[in-house]
């Protein structure tokens, strides 16, 4: 039978249909089908900090960076579900880093105070900066976010405020090792789960409606400018937190935190993993950051490989790995005759 005489049909697997409702708990097999993928990922994540002797301090540091990128990617995800496409996640990340650095250097507070203050303060600063451009959409908003962190890099470099090109060094460190990693893991999983729940709530539906049809939301008597501002503030929080946390980890805040890499890595993570559900951003970050570390020996060829991966995913698998894998897990395909 020639291929143009058939079409591909996707059908839910039997176990997927059985586990959709209360019968999910009728057998261990059903329960495992639902919980195993999540459980394996979470247990692997939680056991990693304990394996220091096997994996070494270097890869634990990579885990820390991966989690920071995950948080920034989750922040991108929330923004994009309101229809705001950001090309400058580094703005949030850098705002967190600089706020916490400034507070810690000038007020001398402990990291346990500067991290929450920096997170909320940085998010507030970002919201104020972006408030005038929230009316913009599509590529115009993306352009502002692209230009803003780069502008701040140049301004800080030229005017030598906030430590100038050298940045702020010698900031107090966090207790290193497993507690530090567990704190970050807990926050990442909490944010991932929380955002998922948020999007299912009535409030989250309004946010998604702004993306789908902003005019109908306006017609419902909702102030979308104010809703978008709230979304930007909430979306900024995970990214600024990542910025503050990594700042205290490295005891340094400088213009590199606003650099292009901090904008591109989370964006690539979401594109490779799949936009929408939190798991997509996490899958992307956990594939890309270790890969990028493994390629570090190749110098700038790493960036080339990275860019090519990005193009291939944008064109070849625009839904992302998570959606692809989820579909394979829940459905099977077969070819049927065209009627």
């Amino acid at each position, binding site marked *: 039978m020639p291929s143009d005489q058939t079409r591909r049909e996707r059908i839910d697997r039997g176990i997927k249909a059985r586990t959709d409702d209360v019968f999910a708990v009728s057998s261990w097999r059903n329960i495992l089908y639902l919980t195993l993928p999540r459980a394996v990922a979470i247990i692997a994540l939680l056991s990693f900090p304990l394996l220091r002797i096997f994996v070494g301090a270097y890869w634990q540091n990579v885990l820390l960076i991966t989690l920071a990128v995950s948080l920034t990617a989750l922040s991108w995800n929330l923004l994009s579900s309101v229809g705001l496409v950001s090309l400058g996640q580094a703005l949030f990340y850098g705002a967190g880093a600089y706020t916490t650095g400034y507070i810690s250097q000038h007020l001398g507070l402990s990291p346990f105070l500067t991290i929450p203050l920096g997170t909320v303060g940085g998010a507030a600063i970002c919201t104020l900066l972006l408030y005038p451009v929230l*009316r913009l959409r599509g590529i115009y908003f993306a352009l502002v976010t692209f230009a803003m962190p780069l*502008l701040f890099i140049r301004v800080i470099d030229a005017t030598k405020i906030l430590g100038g090109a050298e940045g702020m060094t010698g900031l107090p460190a966090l207790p290193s090792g497993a507690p530090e990693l567990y704190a970050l893991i807990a926050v990442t999983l909490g944010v991932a789960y929380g955002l998922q729940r948020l999007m299912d709530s009535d409030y989250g539906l309004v946010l998604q409606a702004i993306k789908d049809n902003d005019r109908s939301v306006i017609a419902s008597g909702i102030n979308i400018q104010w809703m978008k501002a709230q979304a930007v503030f909430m979306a900024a929080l995970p990214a600024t937190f990542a910025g503050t946390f990594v700042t205290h980890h490295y005891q340094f805040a400088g213009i590199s935190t606003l650099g292009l890499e901090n904008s591109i890595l989370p964006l690539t993570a979401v594109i490779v993993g799949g936009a929408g559900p939190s798991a997509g951003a996490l899958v992307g970050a956990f594939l890309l950051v270790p890969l990028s570390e493994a390629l570090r020996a190749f110098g700038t060829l790493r960036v080339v490989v990275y860019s090519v991966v990005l193009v291939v995913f944008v064109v070849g698998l625009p839904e992302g790995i998570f959606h692809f894998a989820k579909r394979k897990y829940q459905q099977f395909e077969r070819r049927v005759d065209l009627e």
Partner: protein
Amino acid sequence: MLEIILIYGLVSASTLMLTALGFSLTFGLSGVANFAHGGMYLLAGYLTWALLNELGLPLLAAAPIAVVGTGLLGALIYQVVLRRVRGIHLSEVVATFAIGVAILESFRWLGFVTYDFTLPVFFEGSTTIGSAVVDYHRISIVVVALAMAGLIWVFTHYTKTGLALRGMAQDEYTALAVGVESDWAAMVSMALGSALAAVAAITILPLGIISINIGYDVLLISLAVTVLGGIESTRGLMAASLILGYATVLASNYLAPHWSEIIYMAAIVLTLIFKPSGIFGKFKELEERV
């Protein structure tokens, strides 16, 4: 001093306009923000260098080959990559940006980072206007920039292809109804934009050495000029180039050279905050904001 600022401001404005012309054309005609513009620009520069120095061609032969080659590459990128993500703005931007970075960083990796890479000027020598010494090459930049802007204007207003492309930009469905093919139009605009990047590279690069970071600056300049001037507006492009050109010359005379980058960034951010359609933006005024 006044002559120096006036003349060098004009040269700077022409450089900016020439740099941004290709980006602005592609963006205005097909809505594709070609973030690979800087990559194409630098690729054309190195291609011309290779044709001149490796094959020993004269500039008059190498320049057209580089322009046509870069234009074809632009068309190829459209056909292979952009066609599949057309209309999804984020994917277009991400794909072209990644292509641009891939081109630029490949050159860095291949070792094109030494001071050996220069292109020849069109005419040797210099002249004095008032108290300012201007070399002939800077004058030819002004001439080429004006000629290119003029050609583009004539092309988009008086030729069938140009009118078809502008029709596409104004109303895609109506243009489709009168028989303009969308993919063809976008491919042509992408090819033209890339070819213009090559023209700009061959004209501007002789002023200094070719270095990778120029590629990123070119993208920045293109964004700044296009956003400030307004999309699909030749007048806007000229006005924005003049404003930014004189602003950068004044800044580097009275402040410090690296303030010019701050001016570009600030132009993008402030324009989008206060008048998102740019100085002379026409069509997109309703689309870009709620």
